[in-house]
Structure formats: structure tokens, C-alpha cells
């Protein structure tokens, strides 16, 4: 199987060129062949897939209405609920937690006849940038098995990059979709906050979390957004009104576009990454882009703000994991306090504990003004600075990260790991859509990504730019070489 372009597969299935059963057989064969090396999936829903394939083939034969995702296999990050299956969040704490309902995104995939292939690995509770914080499994980068796939949605990114799904769903709180997409050489969107329902997503930082699609190219991203970018009444922060509607590049930017670049903020970018970014800028110019220097130097505070607000929210979001109603309950516990203490002690990994402690601290009386409230104020300024930038440009172009995928164990110091998100957290803090597309490769072949950050609700506009970019370039077409480098 060469690639698993969602659009191509959907058309081939609808036109009868391939049956749903063949899609599933090929896919499962491919997963069996490669996933033992990559480790993208925590769970593959084999029997569900065959049942769904029979249903779809039968439906197509009798001429029933086929959904817009018919025939498209989805990999679901294991912090989103698929009814009847365990949602582990990559944590020991939840290895016995069976989801009692479908996340809205999963419901939408099923309603539109997509395949739910399985649940993919992640940093525990989506906290991490390399996928190394998973308590359950190691996931490797399909481009080079010695490298991390990026995180936290590393499993979904690896699954798509290794053609084990057409579309992967990730969640992005500070860069968790974009970083692994860039590390694995695929396209991905962190939509506008509220564009995709969070119902059924296990919360990390509720005001920052956003689910988004990861795929081979921007056509597939657009297809996924048409199914997923709808209002959901079960999520109070879901965008009201109109669903996601694609726009054409010609109509929107045919007369030119203003591309903002925060040059000052990018001064620390290493030389080889800078070279790739400059190439991207050159392409954007050729597409009719006028490059505008925008001042986003405020983003140097973004990471600090993110680690205060994000941890504050997660410290309460994870308080429900107490060993009382579900999840792990320590065998050692002899009284209520011990149930709390020992269950959480045994169930959570170091990074999760570190962040719970940090979040609890920044909200504590006596410290809240200095940390939490101060961070809220800076968040407000970041939002304002982006708004100011968008008065001068249609979208901002930035690298996704300072470098490419790194080897396992390379970032032992939590702070150096946190710095991986330096370019991505801004979009979360301001609730902005950010599209990641492959933008080149380093000399050793490792992919890099660029992100386009737009004003709220301009998801379709940056996707149209991404599509145009991919019509002119081939970066996204380069795949990990399964025979040679990648999986050898």
C-alpha cells in the first residue's frame, strides 16, 4: 500500500474500484506487518472493522447514501472515547476504564461512514512532546526508528506517516498535534478553539485543548474538517453557528495575500531550520504572498504563561482520578486519604505528577496573584498582539519547532522538552487555527514543518493556502522509506 490518501480512498470506494472489505484487509495486513516495530496503536478494533466493512459494502451495493468519510480509516488518539472500548490516556491509571459513550468526533466519523481503526499511543494524558511519557508503550518515528515521533499525539502521527490510517485524530493543548505532525512529515490542523467538539475528549487544559485531524495532505484535512467542524451542543465552548465550509484559494487569495512573519521571535532558530523556513517563505512569495514583518515578541512569554494556565486547569481536570469510582485503586490503601494518595501515586507518571503539583501551586492562595492571575493578563496581551498582527497580515507563518525529531532519551531535562513547544503554544493561548504542513527535510532526511496561524474561524482559509502550497511543492509526498532507512 503506497499511501492512504483519504480523498482518493473515499472516491475509489464510492466508485466501486475497491470494496470496504479490501480496504480493511489491506489496512490490517499493513498494521500487522509494521506496527510491531512502530508501536502506533494501543488497540486495533479488528472485528469492528470487518463488521463495518460488511455494512458499507452492503450499503453501497443497494445504493444507500454513503457518508462523506465512507471508506476512510481513522486512527483515534487514546484520550478520546470510543464507546465500549478502554480509553487509557496512555496512563496506568485508566487501563480498566471502558468508555460509556462515543466522543462527538467519533460519533461524527461513524455517522459519515468512516472506519475507526483503533486507539493510538500518546504521552500520558497528552502531557509531553515526544510520546516518551506514555506509561504503556513506546512509539517510534516511521522515518527513523531511533527517533521519537513527537508528542503528545505521537501514535496518530506515526500511524498516518506509516500508512496505517488515512487520518489520525490528535488533540493539541500546546502543540500536541503540530509537533508530531512535523516530526513525522505529515499535514495537520489545530483548529480554532471550539471548532471541533471536545465532548468525549479527556480534558487536559480545557481552555486550550482542541482536537484536530492529521493527514497525508491538506485535501484530507479539509475533508475531515467538513465532517468534524460542526457545532456540538454538548460542549459549551463549541463555536455557535455555521459549520466548517471550505474556501477556494483563488477566491480568497487569488489577488495576493499578506503573510506575517515574526522575524524577531525567530532569531534563535538554528541555521539548518532557518534555511528550510526561508525556502517556505520563497514558495509563499511565489504564490502571491507579500511578506510582512509582524511583532509577536510577546510570544517569548507564551511558554511560561502556558505552563501556568495549562497546569492550573489540568490539576483540577485530573482531580477526578481519585480511585473512588473508576480507574486504579491502590491495593495498599487502608483509608480514604490512602485511597487518594496511593492510587494517584501508583497511577500517574512523573510528568503528570510534576504538572499537577505545579498547577496546584500556581492556584494556591498567596501565589495565585503572582502566577495564575498574572499569566491570565499576559494571555490577554498575547491575544491582543495577535489581533494587531492580523491587521497587517492574513496569516502568520512560523516554524513548528526549532528542530526535527530527536533520538529517544535526548531531552531528559523537562525544561528542554518544554521548549519544543515554544512556537506552538501561542496559537493555543489565543485560540487560533494553526495548520502544519511538511516544508522540507534536513540533510539526514528528517522532515520539518511550517505552521500557518490565522485569525479565529479562518481555518478554511489557511487550509486553502496549504492546498495551494502542496500543489506547488512535493515535500508532503516524500514518505518514510519502509524498505531502506525507516524501518530497517
Amino acid at each position: 500500500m503506497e499511501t492512504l490518501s483519504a480523498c482518493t480512498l473515499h472516491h475509489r470506494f464510492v466508485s466501486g474500484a475497491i470494496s470496504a472489505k479490501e480496504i480493511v484487509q489491506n489496512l490490517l495486513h499493513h498494521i500487522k506487518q509494521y506496527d510491531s516495530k512502530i508501536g502506533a496503536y494501543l488497540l486495533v478494533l479488528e472485528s469492528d472493522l470487518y463488521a463495518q466493512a460488511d455494512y458499507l459494502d452492503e450499503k453501497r451495493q443497494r445504493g444507500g447514501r454513503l457518508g462523506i468519510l465512507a471508506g476512510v480509516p481513522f486512527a483515534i488518539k487514546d484520550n478520546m472515547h470510543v464507546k465500549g472500548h478502554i480509553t487509557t490516556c496512555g496512563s496506568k491509571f485508566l487501563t480498566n476504564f471502558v468508555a460509556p459513550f462515543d466522543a462527538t468526533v467519533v460519533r461524527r466519523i461513524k455517522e459519515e461512514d468512516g472506519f475507526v481503526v483503533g486507539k493510538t499511543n500518546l504521552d500520558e494524558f497528552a502531557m509531553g512532546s515526544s510520546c516518551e511519557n506514555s506509561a504503556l508503550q513506546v512509539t517510534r518515528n516511521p522515518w527513523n526508528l531511533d527517533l521519537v515521533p513527537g508528542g503528545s499525539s505521537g501514535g496518530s502521527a506515526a500511524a498516518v506517516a506509516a500508512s496505517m490510517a488515512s487520518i489520525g485524530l490528535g488533540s493539541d493543548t500546546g502543540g500536541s498535534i503540530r509537533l508530531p505532525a512535523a516530526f513525522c512529515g505529515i499535514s495537520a490542523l489545530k483548529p480554532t478553539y471550539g471548532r471541533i467538539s471536545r465532548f468525549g475528549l479527556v480534558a487536559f487544559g480545557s481552555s486550550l485543548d482542541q482536537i484536530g485531524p492529521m493527514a497525508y495532505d491538506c485535501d484530507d484535512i479539509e475533508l475531515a474538517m467538513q465532517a468534524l467542524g460542526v457545532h456540538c451542543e454538548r460542549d459549551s465552548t463549541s463555536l455557535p453557528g455555521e459549520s466548517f465550509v471550505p474556501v477556494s484559494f483563488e477566491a480568497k487569495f487569488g489577488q495576493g495575500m499578506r503573510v506575517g512573519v515574526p522575524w524577531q521571535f525567530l532569531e534563535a532558530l538554528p541555521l539548518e531550520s532557518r534555511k528550510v523556513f526561508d525556502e517556505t517563505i520563497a514558495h509563499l512569495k511565489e504564490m502571491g504572498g507579500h511578506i510582512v514583518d509582524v511583532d509577536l515578541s510577546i510570544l517569548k512569554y507564551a511558554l511560561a504563561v502556558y505552563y501556568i494556565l495549562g497546569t492550573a486547569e489540568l490539576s483540577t481536570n485530573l482531580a477526578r482520578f481519585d480511585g473512588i469510582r473508576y480507574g486504579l485503586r491502590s491495593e495498599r490503601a487502608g483509608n480514604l486519604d490512602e485511597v487518594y494518595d496511593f492510587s494517584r501515586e501508583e497511577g500517574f507518571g512523573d510528568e503528570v505528577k510534576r504538572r499537577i503539583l505545579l498547577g496546584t501551586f500556581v492556584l494556591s492562595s498567596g501565589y495565585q496573584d503572582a502566577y495564575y492571575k498574572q499569566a491570565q493578563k499576559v494571555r490577554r496581551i498575547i491575544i491582543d498582539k495577535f489581533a494587531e498582527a492580523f491587521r497587517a497580515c492574513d496569516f502568520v507563518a512560523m516554524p513548528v519547532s526549532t528542530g526535527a525529531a530527536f533520538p529517544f532519551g535526548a531531552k531528559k531535562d523537562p525544561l528542554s522538552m518544554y521548549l519544543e513547544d515554544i512556537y506552538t503554544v501561542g496559537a493555543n493561548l489565543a485560540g487560533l487555527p494553526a495548520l502544519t504542513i511538511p516544508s522540507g527535510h534536513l540533510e539526514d532526511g528528517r522532515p520539518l514543518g511550517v505552521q500557518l496561524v490565522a485569525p479565529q474561524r479562518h481555518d478554511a482559509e489557511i487550509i486553502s493556502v496549504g492546498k495551494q502550497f502542496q500543489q506547488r511543492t512535493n515535500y508532503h509526498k516524500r514518505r518514510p522509506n519502509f524498505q531502506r532507512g525507516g524501518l530497517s
Partner: protein
Amino acid sequence: MNHKWDVIIGLEIHAQLNTKSKLFSGDANRFGDEPNVNISALTVGLPGSLPVLNKEAVRKAIRFGLATQGQVQLWSRFDRKSYFYPDCPRNYQITQYEFPIVRGGHVVALVDGNEKAFSIHCVQLEDDAGMLKHFSSFAGVDFNRAGVPLIEIVSKPCMSSAKEAVAYAMAVRSILEYLDVSDCNMEEGSLRFDVNVSVRPQGETAFRNKIEIKNMNSFSNLEQAVAHEIERQIALYEQNPNEDPGQIVPQATFRWDPQLGKTVLMRTKENAEDYRYFPEPDLLPLVLQQEEIDAEQERLPELPLEKERRFVREFGLSAQQSCFFTMDRRTADYFEQVVEHCSYPKLVANWLAVEFTGRLKDQGKMIWNSGILPVHIAELIGMIQEKRITGKMAKTIADDMVANPGLSPRKIVEQTAAYRPFQDLEQLQVIVQEVVREHPEVVQEVLAGRDRKFAYLVGQVMKRTQGSALPDDVNRLLRTAIECAQY
């Protein structure tokens, strides 16, 4: 040394709203079901669940704010309040800490027959916790109550006695019931009180430490707890006149133990919880339109205070009597239904407040749920006024009405010989003649114009007829007999 003491009391009233569903989920808001049936993913805090605000609960909070002349806020917000306890499924409560839905307002209550206004600080919307049930070797949690909408009505520290605290609390309950905002069922815990009490010597301006007593669910507990706490604090200060008051009564939280008849320490200030409030990110700020608030204002019913004043004005009741009826909307409605059929409102008030309420007390019933029809009360009073029955008979008929609710007093009278008045006029004439003959000097006094003495003679006749003679008949025959005696 014997100071006079000022007492400062503030009250937090938690009222469960009588909405169909919970504050943030579609689960039923219903008391008394089997444990853990009205629960869904959100109610038990499953990961991936999200709160969606119940608009009906918001509407009810607005109604209470308007009814107490508070400022309903066009912009308010929910906050997370963190604490670990098994009855709290997410281990944080969703409440309104910094930006409550209503600010200010006041409640007028009758204290010793005088109207007194008490100030409200704010009203917050929040969700209730579940309930812990302890068994011999383990404890269980019932989450049916978890997520039930509450309003927390926070008063200013504006009360100065246990009596005032109770008067205020009862007035709040009346308003909640009138508005159909809460069922205020005390036994079911739909109305609960936390109270803050401090005392200081008269003349001292700074507040001394306050003691919080939590979670009382009856007016009598509230009254006893406050009275007990006032006494305790004063005694402590008086026993230690030279010590630092801050050390004598350290700030702390107690609960009231009704069995022991005293407060029991829960925690001191040093061990106070840090709730780490911060804005609830899963909910948008609550933004209201002035039009929806105005529309709610239009829909407000007549409130207890207005009704109380109207009863005084329209029916000539005393303030206290009026308050007795208007405290409970159903009792007030009942009174008005009786008055519709009867043109003696003061008599109606007396009969309802004294005779019937007294008789129903043993059954634990109120007049409105006694089964007695309002029209039957009117009928009874009508018969008295028409002199068809005597007052004494009416009281025994009232007994029968309470024993057999639904039975018309006319029917009772028709069916029972004892209630038929003395109707043999010849016989009555004989008795009248006897009385006149036996009291010549009284008769002379009546003839001399001392009409007060006439009542004495009436009494004598009544005595001999065991009270069954109709006063009109007695009067008429007695007048004639006296006039005849002149000659």
C-alpha cells in the same frame, strides 16, 4: 465586669432549585429515588464529560434576585472550587465565586411584629454534592443529589439575634416558595443553612473572630445553634477578660449536633481548606440580556411582603395575623379562597389561625393540605353569622370537619340532632318566663336602661338550653318577656 454585647450574624442559605434536571446535565433532579439512578457521565465525573448550563436554573436564580430587589448581573461567571471528598465527583464544585449572578438586595421580615429589612450580599448559582452513607464496615456514595442546582444566598452580617436569623431565614423561604424557585422541603434537605456568628462589647468597632456553623436544615436547629454560640462566645470572653480576644475565640468552623445540643468543632483556621478558585474553563461566562431579565420581572407573582400588607389593608388583619397566612403561599391562597365565599375575613382569619390550625397540628397537617374545602369553612362561618348554630356548636362541628375532611358543615348539622338548635319556641318561651321570674331585680335594672344586664339574662337562658338556643330567638323572646314584666 459585665459588658453589654453586640451580636453579629450572617447567614448563607443553600436552596435547591426545583428544576426538572440538574444544573449541568439532563439527569433528573428528584429526591427519594433508589441510590445512583439519576446519574450520567457528568454527574459521576467521568472523564470526557462536559457541563452544559441549565437555563431553567438560571431563570430561577434571576427570579429570586428580582424578588429581593437585587442587581441581576448581565455578566457573571462560574468558578471551580477544589476539594477532595468522595461525594464530590470531579473533586471540584462548579460555583460562582468572583462574579455571582446577583449582587445586593434585601429581604423584609417581621421581628416581634415589626418589619425589619435584612441585606443580601450576593446570590450564587452552584451544583450540589452527592451524599455519603455509612454502613458498618464501609461507606457508599449516592450521586443522585450530585449536580442538583443550588442558589447560595449570602446575607450581609446584618442580624443581631437568633430570633432575627430565623425570621430572615423564614422570610427567604417564603419568597423561594412564592416564586416556585425551590420546594424548600426541610426534611429532604432542600434548604440548608450555614451561619457566621461573632460578638463584641458594645462600643467596640472592630469585628472579633467569627465562628461558622455549617449545614443546619431546620429553623429550630438554626435558632438553637445561634443562641448557643452567642452564649458560648460571651461566656468565654467574660471568663477571660484580660486575654487577647483573638486567642480566646479563634476563627473556626463548627457543626451543630442536635442530639448533644451543642456545636462540634470541624476545623480551625490553620486547617482551613485552600479551595484554589479559578474560572471554570468548560463554561462560557453567563451573559444575560436586559430584555430577558425584564420579562422575568413582568412574570413575578405577588410576593409575601406585598401580600402581607394587602391582607392588612384589605381584610383588616393585624400584621402578625397577616404574616401567619402569607408566610406560606398555599395558606394565603386558602385564606383568599375562603374569603371569596364569606364576607367576614377577620372571622375567617380567627377560625383558620386558631381553631383549625390547632386541630390540624396533631396530624402534622396544614389547612391547605387538610382536605377541608375552603367553601366549607365559609359555610361554617356563614351558619354562625346567620345564627343557625351557636359558637359552641361550631367548635364541635370543626372537630368533625377535621375528622372527616370533605364533609360539608351543613350536612353535619343536618345529620346530627345535637347540632340542631333549640327550635321548640314554646318550650323556649317557658324557659324565658322562668328566668325573668327568678331575676326580678335584674329585669328592673334592664328596664332602667342598663342594657349590659340583658346579656346576663341571655346567658341564663343559654345555660338552661345547653347553649343550643339560637341567640336571635332568645333575644326576641326575652325582650318581649321583659317588656311584659313592666306591667
